[in-house]
């Protein structure tokens, strides 16, 4: 019975997390071959394209923090979500980057004339994958981001569980013990060599 629970948990958890594992595999390859992708996309950061420009009629308290201003603007634009906000040193400009996973958006607000410039980042597959790979943690004020962070924790727990349950399932199959031991031992030996030399 215990064996069956381990096997089924191993499988169903893996089926549920297929999209995450695929994303982490592809994004890791993209990051491992960053120099290769530079041939196609160049060395410059991903470009922003102007989407629209408008005048923002709202007002803010004098002591409003950049994040409060950003939140109010995002809500009024119907774009509320994970973001960061930076005010220029002279206070003339507030730059908000909305961390949309597919199309990040940059909103530049000029308080003097109330102008808002909204730009979208050009889509690039390696950049999209890297954004997804790096998204984690519970620092955001948004519940959905915390839910994503929880899903990342679930992947972490699953990876450790797959190692343990995989070892268990292998050990149960007597016929594969010798073959499995050869593979496991060679993997550990190569890994140890790396750890001690580079």
């Amino acid at each position: 019975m215990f064996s069956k629970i381990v096997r089924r948990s191993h499988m169903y958890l893996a089926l549920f997390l297929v999209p995450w594992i695929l994303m982490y595999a592809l994004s890791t390859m993209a990051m491992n071959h960053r120099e290769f992708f530079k041939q196609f996309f160049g060395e410059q950061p991903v470009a922003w394209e102007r989407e629209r420009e408008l005048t923002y009629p709202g007002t803010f308290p004098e002591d409003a923090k950049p994040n409060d201003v950003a939140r109010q603007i995002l809500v009024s634009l119907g774009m509320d979500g994970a973001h960061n906000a930076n005010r220029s040193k002279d206070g003339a400009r507030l730059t908000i980057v909305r961390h949309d996973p597919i199309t990040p958006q940059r909103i530049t607000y000029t308080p003097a004339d109330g102008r808002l410039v909204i730009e979208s980042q050009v889509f690039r597959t390696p950049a999209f994958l890297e954004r997804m790979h790096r998204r984690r943690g519970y620092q955001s004020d948004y519940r959905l981001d915390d839910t994503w962070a929880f899903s990342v924790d679930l992947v972490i727990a699953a990876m450790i569980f797959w190692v343990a349950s995989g070892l268990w399932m292998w050990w149960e199959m007597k016929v594969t013990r010798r073959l499995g031991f050869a593979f496991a031992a060679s993997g550990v030996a190569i890994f140890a060599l790396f750890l001690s030399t580079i």
Partner: protein
Amino acid sequence: MTFHLLTRRIHLCLGLFLLPWFFLYGVSSIPFSHAPYFQKLYEDGVPQWTVRFEKPYEIQVPKEGDMRATGARILADNGLKGSFGTYRPNEKVLETYLFTFWTASRVRYFTEEKRLLVEDRRSRWDQILTGMHARGGFEQDSILSDAWAIFIDVVCIGMVLWIASGIYMWWKIRSTRVWGWLALGGGLAAFAIFLAAL
């Protein structure tokens, strides 16, 4: 050997061979996902960096472009060796970070003062793990570093093969198809919602 048995053996042997990498990536994701917790854990008054040496030094630093060649020259001039990366955080500093799996140092050249400062990072488990996790790419002039990067590719390919072989093995167990569909479909739906709503 039938195709079914071959698939099962590939799934198992690949898992056992790549077990140390998979375990490393799982465990090392924890300090990434819970960075504030680990940061607090090490707020013990021990400085993050300790000066190894400091001396007057002069080198021409290009205003823009790839700084790696300049970083390599600084290291060679000062008898420092190892895997490294170079970047320019601001106009006044060129920073080269030297690293192994277990240690990290930074070599900072102050362009206006013409001064070189070499510091060693304190040993912290969270930083050792995140350093191992983030290590990759083919930029280093070291065969073993390139071999590590190749193994990262093997892990990524392994993850894709586990998905493919796992789905195949699940499909072969008729009694698990309904729950399997629910798990797979649920995962795909949840991931799609994250992509659309984050």
